[in-house]
């Protein structure tokens, strides 16, 4: 009993010295934990199973963020509610868009997915974390911002960022090596929405996504016929559903074309942590395209 009390007291004292920072995305949370370690407490408002494109913070979320001086967003328009959110912040609070410091790519794939303007051809693609190299830069950005806010621990943030950067460098090499197992002509990534542009550019894939899918995963008969023809013509081996998206139309496409239906990929969500998310996606892509 006495021991428990002392442990509790020590934990409370440690928590009192922690810097409270906010995160609007589980990937940003993972980044913050890696760089901030025991020096920060991260408050996250988007859960792993919530759709980042449709999420809007409610009053409870805003209250949770009240004690955070810095709030980290992925940026590049991923958090479409960000302008209103910033207006609701109190004096002294600031939002850091990590993606602002990452080079941008435009949505570039054959068909146009019409769910929302952020996925239209030519729009700024917000899914920058699918290129692991960008995460290496992201840890430096997080370390810089935490260091500005908390200069006493700036050295610790820098050294943790360096370690995290080395892990991402290794992960980037691993992705390249795994992808090299897929014959070049088969490196076509067909997904329900344009979330893998950065991944495709970094690792030598052609990006394609299924045209005309509704938000519910439905597709019109005319679009279905067109897509079946396209998939057959291009001899696509596999199509990949996404977590948090309805796979109904993709299942139908798979049955009609003989294309394999790959395991669902994490496009906007996360699988425990960033590294496991990337490893899961790459393993499933390689498995389906080398069969």
């Amino acid at each position: 009993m006495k021991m428990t009390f002392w442990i509790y007291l020590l934990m409370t004292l440690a928590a009192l010295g922690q810097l409270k920072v906010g995160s609007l995305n589980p990937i940003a949370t993972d980044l913050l934990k890696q760089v901030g370690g025991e020096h920060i407490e991260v408050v996250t408002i988007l859960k792993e199973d919530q759709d980042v494109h449709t999420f809007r913070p409610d009053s409870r979320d805003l209250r949770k963020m009240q004690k955070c001086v810095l709030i980290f967003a992925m940026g590049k328009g991923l958090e479409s509610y960000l302008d209103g959110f910033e207006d609701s912040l109190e004096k002294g609070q600031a939002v850091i868009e990590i993606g602002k410091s990452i080079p941008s790519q435009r949505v570039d794939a054959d068909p146009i997915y019409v769910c929302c303007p952020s996925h239209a051809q030519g729009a700024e693609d917000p899914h920058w974390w699918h290129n692991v190299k960008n995460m290496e830069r992201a840890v430096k950005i997080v370390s810089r911002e935490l260091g500005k806010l908390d200069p006493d621990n700036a050295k610790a943030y820098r050294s943790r960022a360096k370690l995290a950067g080395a892990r991402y460098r290794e992960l980037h090499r691993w992705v390249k090596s795994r992808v090299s197992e897929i014959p070049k002509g088969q490196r076509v990534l067909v997904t329900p929405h344009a979330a893998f542009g950065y991944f495709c550019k970094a690792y030598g894939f052609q990006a394609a996504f299924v045209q005309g899918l509704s938000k519910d995963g439905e597709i019109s008969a005319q679009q279905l016929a067109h897509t079946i023809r396209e998939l057959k013509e291009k001899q696509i081996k596999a199509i990949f559903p996404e977590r948090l998206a309805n796979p109904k139309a993709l299942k139908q496409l798979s049955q009609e074309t003989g294309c394999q239906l790959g395991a669902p990929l994490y496009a906007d969500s996360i699988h425990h942590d960033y590294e496991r998310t990337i490893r899961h996606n790459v393993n499933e892509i390689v498995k389906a395209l080398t069969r």
Partner: protein
Amino acid sequence: MKGSPLCAALLLSFIFALAIVPLLSLTHREPQSFAASEASGNETLIPVLSGFVTVRSAHPYQSIEISRGGKVLWQVSEPGLEAESELELLAQDLLQFRVIWPDETPETAVFVEIEPDGKEAFSQTYWAVGNLGEEIRLDLK
């Protein structure tokens, strides 16, 4: 004694003598310092972007230096294999990149990467023996 003209004159001379030291340093600068001051005048025009610089060497280096127009922006004098720092960059920048390795280091490779905020990274691997001096030209417009 208090109002003596001799004392007043002595006090005045003492004050002049004290003032002459900073005046001399202002008016008798080395020509080199003028050049540096001109260079720094140019630099302060537009420090447009923040960025990161990373250097990785295959063999332990002795020192690393990045400068612009003679002004040192970043210096590492601790031996090591890897170093990184933040760096302020100009829209059109010309940086001098120097690495020195200890004697008897064989021909070795050094990787430098400069990541300006929001822009594509510049990265290059150089090979050298003993020391390296390269110019890095960046166009960040």
